[in-house]
Structures are given as structure tokens and as C-alpha cells.
């Protein structure tokens, strides 16, 4: 049974649209699976998602419960495998609950920034002329904003908090995607297959959405995964300045900033959340690398 | 006298569906003659040329009983020793000069580099040799060409520069992989004439790889026809039109001809037997 399913998926002669799509997905999956590093990245992220989901079940303590008599306990203490922070809160529990916040930030930015960039870049690249100039100058303006300055402006206008931090990060993260999308669009625009569909009377909307977007999406996906590390760190940076997740929220970046003062004698308070950020960023990087190997070769395959 | 002796050459590539044999048991000898290797895409002709120069990198696997250059087996040489062979004793000219010339170096710099790689010479000696070589490939204004960049050259000139570069170290064998396929018809003849003169004057051996059967028949002394990694037929170039193998005949008949108009062209019916039969040896 498994044999026939596998050969059905690996066939060279698909019999229907669904069959063809599933076959393409399966072959992509096989290709991805052969990359050990990428699989490691994927597994780490799957575990992260599971931890975030099952946080209430996994965390041994309440992440907000302070125990001032039990401050700064080292690793492997009784009841606190990863120690406690400066207010006696269990670091492990805070780490587990913090994963939810990390995923929230990463998920939102990963949706907003590339999609905005895709829209702006492909329209600018395809339509050209004044539209291109105007859109690209707008892109340049946003590119010129330092992240923190924009975040400060947002906080001043809308108040501090994690949503506003996410918005601030997204607003400075989308320009590179717009540039990538525009560059790809310029290349694709002059291909014969675009000329051919123009000869069928297709309008700009159809060409951009059905012909150009599918080709840009893979490089954007790869870019997003590789940017994740930067996004997590940006959120951490904002948390550090008090502009992002507000205390007592167990956001990993905020945890690092809280533990900064004790780094010499009680190094684990800052280092443990730092290791968590490092692991998740690495996982995204490996995933992105693996995705690129799978998604890009098809484009150049002859 | 035999310059090159290739015996039982195999080139394999591992793929998801198993091992793919690009070249299967090819054997031939090359003397001071013009040998043509003809085949369609996927026949293994370019792979053969690259395998001789050990230009096939892992995961590709090259094996042969021997690839002997004047009696010395190249398969036994280390990579370092092969670097002395490449360019110096066996040279290769490829299809599109756009892709084989370095776009950020002037033509002069590239030719001089090619020369000094194999000869200890001062810059001025190398410059003089380069000019000489450019004149030998019928470039009328060599000083100007020396200062120019490859993208400023037309296809025909680029190819002539390539030939100059490849022949300046005075190799014994030249492998030309589709040297005229990217050129216009009127320029093709010019480039072929240049290759012809140089090869004859220097007593070199030439391996001419092409998909163009008529061109090869016209230009070479002996022809090997490859199909699916194997040699299916060997014949003298002037007897090509009396070829026996059905694949060769099929190829000849499927070409449209100005002097023999037909309603429909004959379509090649591929017999699976052709791929299964063993390679015909072209060793003399």
C-alpha cells in the first residue's frame, strides 16, 4: 500500500491537477528531507511550536510567580532546572511561555513584511515608469528609518507594547523584500513566457498575480527565514529598551536585558534566554537554507 | 603516430533514480588527424571531451582502462600533474566565447595570463607572443583587440580570441566542443579555416565535437557517431553518406536539404537496441 502510494507520488505522468501538485510537493519534500541540516532546523521549530502550544502543561511553575527569597538560584537547583531570575521567577517556565511571544512576533512580521514587499516590488517592477519611481522612492524612505527611531515614534504615538513593536519592526523590514521582488520582476518581465501570455490578451493584474508572484515567492520565503534571526533580535532589542514586551512579560529579549546586571556572578539569567534565541535563529537559518535548495533549483532546471 | 589512446571510458553520475551512465565504454585513438565526434544532446559527446581533460568533478565518476597521451596514462596523474597537461598539452575551445572569456579582464590580459601560466616569460615577451597569436587567427588590429574587453567583441572575434588563447601554449591536441554553433553561418567558415590552418601547421590532433553532421563530414578526416553514451559507428568523413548504422542514416535523412526537396522529413525511429549494443571501438 505504501509502495503504491509512493510510486503514485513519484510518477512522471500525473493524471490530474491535484495529482500533479501533490507529486510536486512530495518530490520537494524528498529533496528537503535529504538535507540533514535543514531537517534539524525543521525539527527544532516543530518542537518550538509544540512547546508554545503545550506551555501550560510543560511549565513547572507560574512564569509570573515571584519568590524573592529564592532569587538568582543557579542551574540544577531543586525545582528550578534552569535557575531563577532576580525576582525569584523560574527561568524554565518563563522560557517556555516566552516561546509563545517569540512565535507571535515572528509570525506577524513574517506575514506583514514580505507580503507588503511583494505587492510593492512586483507592481513597481512590472508597471515601470512613474509608478516604479514613486514606489521605489517610498521604499527608500522606509529603508532610511532606523528601526529604533521608528519604534520610538510609534510608542510616543500609540503607547508601548508588543503589537506596536511588531508593527514598527514590520515597517522597517519590508523594503528589502520589495527590492528583491522588483529585481526578480524585472528579469521575469522580459521572458518569452510573459510575452506569450501577453499575446493571449492577459492584463497586468493577471500577469502579476498568476505569473510573477509564484516565481517571486520562493526567494521571499527563503529571505524571510534567513531574516528571522534579525527579527527576533530586533524584538529583543526593543524589549531591552522597554519599547516592546512590557514587564513582567517573559519575552526572551526582555529576559536578557533584565539579566544583564548579573552577568558576572549569575551568568545563566541572561545566557539561558540568549541560548534560546540563538537556537531558534539557527533553526530558521538552516530551514531557510534547505528551502532555498529545494525551491530554487527548479527555476534553473533545463 | 598515436597522440591519444582512450580505452573503455565510462562516465557515471549518481541520481535519485540510480546511477546514470553518460558515457559508456567509449574507445578511440587520435593521431595527427581531425577526428569528429557527432551526436545529439545527451549522447555523451561533450562529456567525453571533458573526461579526457579530467574536468568532471565529483559526484561524477570517470573510469577508463586508459587515457594515454603519447604513451603516458592520464588517469594515473594527480590533479596537480593534470594542471600541467591542461592547456599545455591538451587544450579545449568551447561553444560560446561569452561564457568562456573572463568579462572583467581585457583580452590582452587573458592571453598573456594563458601564456605565462605555462612559460616563464617576461611581460613584454608574452605581449609580443600574444600579438603574434592574434595575427595568426586573422585579427587585423591586434593592438586594439588586446586593450578591449570581451563584450566589445563579436561572436566570431571572441571565438578567434579563444582559439588564440588556447593555442598559445602550443598544445599537441585541441578539443573543440561545438566551436562554431553560436556563430553566424558566414563567420563559421572563417573560424573553421583558422582552426584548420593552425592544426595542420602545428601537426596537432583535433577532436571536433558537434551536433552538425554535415559540418563534421566536411571538416574532419574520421567521424565517430555517438548515441546514448556509446559509439554506434565509425567511418571516414568522405564516406559518411554511405554510413551503415540506422541511427546515422536516420540523422542524415532527417535533415532538410536545399538540393533534395521533400514533402515531409524522415523521422528517426529510435530502436532501443542502439543503446543496448556495445560501443564500437574506434581504436586503430
Amino acid at each position, binding site marked *: 500500500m505504501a509502495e503504491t502510494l509512493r510510486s503514485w507520488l513519484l510518477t512522471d505522468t500525473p493524471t490530474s491537477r491535484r495529482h*500533479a501538485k501533490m507529486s510536486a510537493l512530495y518530490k520537494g519534500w524528498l529533496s528537503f528531507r535529504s538535507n540533514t541540516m535543514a531537517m534539524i532546523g525543521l525539527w527544532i521549530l516543530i518542537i518550538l511550536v509544540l512547546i508554545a502550544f503545550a506551555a501550560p502543561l510543560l511549565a513547572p511553575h507560574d512564569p509570573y510567580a515571584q519568590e524573592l527569597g529564592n532569587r538568582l538560584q543557579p542551574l540544577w537547583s531543586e525545582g528550578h532546572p534552569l535557575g531563577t531570575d532576580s525576582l525569584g521567577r523560574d527561568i524554565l517556565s518563563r522560557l517556555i511561555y516566552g516561546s509563545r511571544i517569540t512565535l507571535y512576533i515572528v509570525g506577524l512580521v513574517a506575514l506583514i513584511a514580505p507580503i507588503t514587499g511583494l505587492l510593492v516590488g512586483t507592481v513597481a517592477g512590472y508597471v515601470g515608469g512613474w509608478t516604479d519611481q514613486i514606489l521605489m522612492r517610498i521604499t527608500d524612505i522606509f529603508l532610511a528609518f532606523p528601526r529604533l527611531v521608528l519604534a520610538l515614534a510609534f510608542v510616543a504615538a500609540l503607547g508601548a507594547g508588543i503589537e506596536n513593536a511588531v508593527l514598527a519592526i514590520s515597517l522597517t523590514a519590508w523594503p528589502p523584500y520589495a527590492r528583491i521582488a522588483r529585481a526578480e520582476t524585472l528579469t521575469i518581465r522580459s521572458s518569452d513566457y510573459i510575452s506569450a501570455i501577453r499575446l493571449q490578451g492577459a492584463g497586468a493584474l493577471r500577469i502579476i498575480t498568476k505569473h510573477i508572484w509564484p*516565481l517571486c515567492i520562493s526567494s521571499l520565503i527563503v529571505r524571510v527565514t534567513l531574516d528571522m534571526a534579525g527579527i527576533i533580535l530586533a524584538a529583543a532589542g526593543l524589549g531591552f529598551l522597554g519599547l516592546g514586551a512590557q514587564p513582567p512579560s517573559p519575552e526572551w529579549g526582555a529576559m536578557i536585558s533584565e539579566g544583564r546586571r548579573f552577568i558576572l556572578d549569575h551568568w545563566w539569567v541572561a545566557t539561558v534566554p540568549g541560548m534560546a534565541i540563538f537556537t531558534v535563529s539557527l533553526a530558521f537559518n538552516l530551514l531557510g537554507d534547505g528551502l532555498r535548495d529545494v525551491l530554487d533549483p527548479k527555476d534553473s532546471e533545463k | 603516430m598515436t597522440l591519444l589512446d582512450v580505452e573503455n571510458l565510462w562516465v557515471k553520475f549518481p541520481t535519485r533514480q540510480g546511477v546514470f551512465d553518460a558515457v559508456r565504454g567509449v574507445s578511440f585513438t587520435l593521431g595527427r588527424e581531425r577526428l569528429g565526434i557527432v551526436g545529439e544532446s545527451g549522447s555523451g559527446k561533450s562529456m567525453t571531451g571533458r573526461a579526457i581533460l579530467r574536468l568532471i568533478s565529483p559526484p561524477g565518476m570517470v573510469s577508463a582502462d586508459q587515457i594515454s597521451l603519447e604513451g603516458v596514462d592520464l588517469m594515473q596523474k594527480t590533479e596537480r600533474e593534470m594542471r600541467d597537461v591542461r592547456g599545455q598539452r591538451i587544450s579545449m575551445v568551447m561553444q560560446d566565447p561569452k561564457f568562456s572569456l573572463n568579462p572583467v579582464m581585457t583580452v590582452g590580459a587573458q592571453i598573456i595570463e594563458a601564456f605565462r601560466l605555462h612559460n616563464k616569460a617576461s611581460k613584454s615577451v608574452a605581449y609580443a607572443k600574444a600579438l603574434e597569436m592574434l595575427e595568426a587567427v586573422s585579427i587585423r588590429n591586434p593592438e586594439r583587440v588586446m586593450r578591449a574587453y570581451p563584450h566589445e567583441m563579436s561572436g566570431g572575434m571572441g571565438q578567434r580570441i579563444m582559439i588564440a588563447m588556447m593555442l598559445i601554449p602550443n598544445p599537441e591536441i585541441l578539443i573543440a566542443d561545438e566551436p562554431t554553433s553560436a556563430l553566424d553561418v558566414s563567420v563559421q567558415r572563417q573560424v573553421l579555416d583558422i582552426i584548420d590552418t593552425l592544426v595542420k601547421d602545428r601537426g596537432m590532433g583535433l577532436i571536433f565535437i558537434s551536433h552538425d553532421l554535415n559540418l563534421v563530414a566536411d571538416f574532419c578526416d574520421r567521424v565517430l557517431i555517438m548515441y546514448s553514451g556509446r559509439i554506434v559507428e565509425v567511418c571516414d568523413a568522405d564516406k559518411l553518406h554511405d554510413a551503415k548504422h540506422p541511427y546515422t542514416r536516420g540523422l542524415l535523412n532527417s535533415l532538410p536539404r536545399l538540393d533534395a526537396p521533400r514533402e515531409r522529413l524522415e523521422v528517426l525511429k529510435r530502436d532501443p537496441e542502439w543503446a543496448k549494443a556495445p560501443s564500437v571501438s574506434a581504436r586503430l
Partner: protein
Amino acid sequence: MSMLSVKDLNVWFGGGRDRVDAVKSASFDVAEGDSFGIVGESGSGKSTILRAIVGLNPTWNGQIKVNGQPVPKRRPKSFYKTVQMVFQDPYASLHPRHSVDQVLGETLHLHGFSDIEARVVKLLDDVGLGRDFRFRYPHQLSGGQRQRVAIARALAPEPRILLLDEPTSALDVSVQAEILNLLTDLRAEHGLTYVMVSHDLSVVGHMCGRLAVMKDGEIVEIMDVAALRAMQAQHPYSQQLLAASV
């Protein structure tokens, strides 16, 4: 009456000092059902003429008439139901992410056909590909198969004129024979008019009845294929081209 009439066509790129005149004062007529060849070397402007006729080049002037009607600067959709094009490089003329079914289906949809399913199957049969190929992606097709799909796409709107830009120059000799035979059969079956561009004189000699020889953007001679076969070219450039081709 001529199906396609081109008079004093000029096509240029760029403007002012950077202007490059790719085609200068080209004129020719193609009668209905005929096959007209355009030969020349690279840079002669032969592909540019086709692209200008079909509307891919915005900077042109002169007169182009299809079926007696002058062609306006902005091509209406009805134009594309009459004139279609097959491109040179089979590896670049199909969208890498669209299956054969999507390519043909989209074309039929854009031209307003409703019985898309049946037509896709018929088109694939007409170009010699079976149903097996319907859901394949371009990277699962050989060069010859891709070119067949491109031809099917061009035939989908049921055009009268097919512009062929070096349709077989990127293909192997044996595959070329198949595609040329297919094109010959299709022309007979559907009463199509062809304009075929090629650098290969023997291909043009096989497929066409009359041809134009181009050099540096100008048509230097228009001749019958019979004259070509008899090696009787008038213009010295045509003679040169003929001599180099045999």
C-alpha cells in the same frame, strides 16, 4: 488578397542619440495559406519584425495590415485571435511553475472559450502529445515536447496567421524533423498562413514558398524558394549567404 501586408515598417529601440534602428523600411506581403520565410544573420532584424507585427515592440511606424484591416497601435483582443506566435527557445517560453494543462487552460479561458476541458485534450492530440502530458511541468518535458506545447498554445485561439521565430534552432536534428513535419501538417489541416524566421536556409527552403533576405535591418531581396534551390540569388549578400550555407 494578402493575409498579411507589411509596408515601410521601421522599428527602433531607444531614442535621440541612443536610437538603434533595428528594422528599416521593410515591406512584404503574404498571401493566405502561404508560408513566408525571413532569413538573415544575427542582428539582421528578422525576429524584431515578428515582434513588431505581434505588438511586443511599441516603437514602430509604417503600415501593417492583417486580412486587409490596418493594425492599430494598441492591439485589440481580436487581433490575438487572428495572429499568434511561437518563440525560439523552448526552455524559456513556458512558465516554469505552470503545468501544461494550466498553460493551455489559461489561454483558452482568456480567449473566452467555455469547453476548455475538451479543447485542451484536442490540442494536445493535434500536436502529437497524448493525455499523459497534460499535467506535467516544463522541467518534466524535453525540448521538443515543450515546443509542441508552445505550438498548442499558439493554436488554442484558432488563429489564421502563425509567426514562427526560429522554432527549431534550439532543438536536436531528429527532433527538428518531427516539429517541422508537425508544422507542415498543421498548416495543411487548418489552412494557416506562416511567417517563419530562421538563420538556416535549408529549413526555410523546406518549409516556405517565398522568402525575404535581411541584412542590417533591411530586406535586401525577396525571392521564390525555387530560385533559392537553383542558387539564383540576385543580391550579392543573398549569394554570399547561399554560398556559405551549402
